[in-house]
């Protein structure tokens, strides 16, 4: 008798947790980029030894003459992408988020963003998607990237949105940073969903008691939590903000006005990302709502499976459900 496979283990290759019963799509980034490459001959693809683990290989296979693996050289990845863009190319480049943000920050800021270079960064393994611990977990990338002027920052929810973001990124002027999802990526949003750069979208309109503001795949989890708690009489709304920069403060304020209390969720540290942006928008407008945060503490995180890490650090589905069920009188209190 063979042993059962060990499920509860570290996964470093960053395939998002497959939620039981959910439809998935394989490699939505790379497959869409390969398609787009047929339409747009000026598109080139680059990776820093992370072709397989960023899902860009379908583009390589379709357009081998327009694909470059620069090796483990993230600074050069960003410089070459900038150089290619300055002679008319649209450079899509990939590696893990941490290696773009922490290692090549100056090159993103100056060689790319400052020059408004047509560089599209698809940065893999955002937040706790990667199980290799702090070295591989981009838990402050939104904070870092939103600090750079003239840089668009997008955190897509699912395969449907990611495919649209690939196409949109080619047309957004200048440098774009996208949190890429790889492997079998869940399908959450309907076929009628339309990504609009810079605009938040209400995915679910509830009864006005609880409003969830989320980005990335946390918006999908928010919808799961709404479904899981519906039978108990909870009816939250969900505002999905896939574009982190430019930030749709107007959508946040309108949404907040219509709800008694808020839950803000992101696959990122509480500091400097969506939560901070929401707080800034509310404070500047003078609007106050009790707020529960589902995000990561200001810390480094350990190795482990995504399920294990998300449960340990309080960003899993039960955490969402608990936040929805929270007594309104205690919502917003320090946790």
């Amino acid at each position, binding site marked *: 008798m063979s042993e059962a496979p060990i499920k509860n283990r570290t996964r470093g290759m960053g395939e998002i947790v497959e939620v039981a019963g959910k439809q998935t799509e394989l490699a939505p980034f790379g497959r869409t980029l390969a398609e787009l490459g047929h339409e747009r001959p000026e598109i080139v693809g680059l990776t820093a030894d992370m072709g397989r683990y960023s899902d860009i290989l379908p583009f390589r296979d379709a357009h081998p003459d327009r694909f*470059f693996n620069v090796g483990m050289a993230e600074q*050069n990845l960003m*410089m070459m992408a900038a150089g290619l*863009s300055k*002679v008319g190319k649209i450079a899509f480049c990939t590696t893990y988020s941490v290696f773009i943000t922490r290692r090549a920050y100056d090159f993103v800021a100056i060689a790319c963003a400052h020059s408004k270079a047509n560089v599209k960064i698809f940065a893999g393994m955002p937040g706790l998607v990667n199980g290799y611990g702090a070295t591989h977990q981009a838990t402050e990338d939104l904070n870092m990237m939103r600090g750079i002027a003239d840089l668009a920052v997008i955190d897509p929810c699912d395969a449907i949105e990611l495919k649209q973001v690939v196409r949109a990124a080619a047309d957004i002027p200048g440098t774009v940073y996208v949190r890429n999802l790889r492997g079998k990526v869940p399908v959450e949003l309907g076929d009628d969903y339309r990504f609009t750069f810079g605009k938040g979208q209400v995915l679910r309109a509830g009864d006005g008691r609880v409003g969830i503001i989320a980005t990335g795949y946390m918006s999908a989890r928010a919808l799961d939590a709404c479904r899981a708690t519906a039978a108990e009489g909870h009816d939250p709304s969900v505002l999905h903000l896939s574009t982190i920069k430019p930030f749709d403060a107007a959508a946040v304020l309108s949404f907040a006005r219509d709800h008694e209390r808020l839950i803000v969720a992101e696959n990122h540290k509480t500091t400097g990302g969506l939560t901070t942006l929401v707080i800034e928008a509310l404070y500047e407008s003078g609007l106050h709502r009790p707020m529960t945060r589902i995000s990561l503490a200001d810390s480094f995180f350990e190795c482990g499976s995504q399920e294990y890490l998300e449960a340990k650090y309080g960003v899993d589905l039960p955490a969402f459900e608990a936040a929805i069920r929270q007594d309104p009188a205690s919502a917003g209190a320090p946790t």
Partner: protein
Amino acid sequence: MTTSPATAALSNQPPGAPDLDELRRRAFALRRKMMGMAAGKGEGYIAQGLAMADCLAALYFHEMRHDSARPDWPDRDRFLLSTGHYSIAMYAVLAEAGYMDEAQLPSYGLNGSALPMSTFDETVGVEIVGGSLGHGLGQAVGMAMGLRMDGSPARVFCEFSDGELQEGSTWEAAMGAATFGCDNLVALIDCNGIQADGPVTVAIEPVADKMSAFGWDTSEVDGNDMAALVAALAGARAADGRPKAIVMRTTPGHGVPTIVARERAHFVRIADDEWDALIAELEAGNV
């Protein structure tokens, strides 16, 4: 890429034999412009700029195919100044070559000037944002690859300094250029022996041997010897699958003996009442 018949007819190879006397005259004109730009400012990167004048004259008035009337000509040769703080030399050559009005030059480094102390690509003729050192060569590699993909005859000339050889990104790019066989790329390495804190003390020599070991077709010249520079540039035209490097040994302040002798300093300070004498030194040497 769209290429008009007129531009397609232009070769990327320089026409005819170099006129060394004319190129030396151009280099003097660049130095004279730089002295005028720096005069009265009290400080600046005049020493490095003076040292680069010969290289820039050889590029813009002999080796490079470019057209100041069409600064966005797709098939132009590109010059990338990685050391953005050498901006004084860049603006001098752009004015000399007709990319900007010479009347702008005195505003160099002043608040609100279109000619900032470090180079930004908003300036016509400036291809990249320089100054954050270690950014030039990798962008040159990307440009060279993109131009090659389009079948363009254009070449990319990238200046960077011995100090920048201490940046790891320069070596990442050096490996990349060799890996991708960028023979339309020429690195011009300004080895002037100085950096912000004084003499270069990090063990970066032998630069030429290192570049050769990284797969570059490398030569080494006196960067203030026009004949040697022109010959090295001619030797860097071969489409042989290898990137080209010219290690230029330059003398900071070249052409103005007092600046050469004062100090081998990164950031020379000159008093207001010294400039006339220094300009006279430059002109006296132009014989």
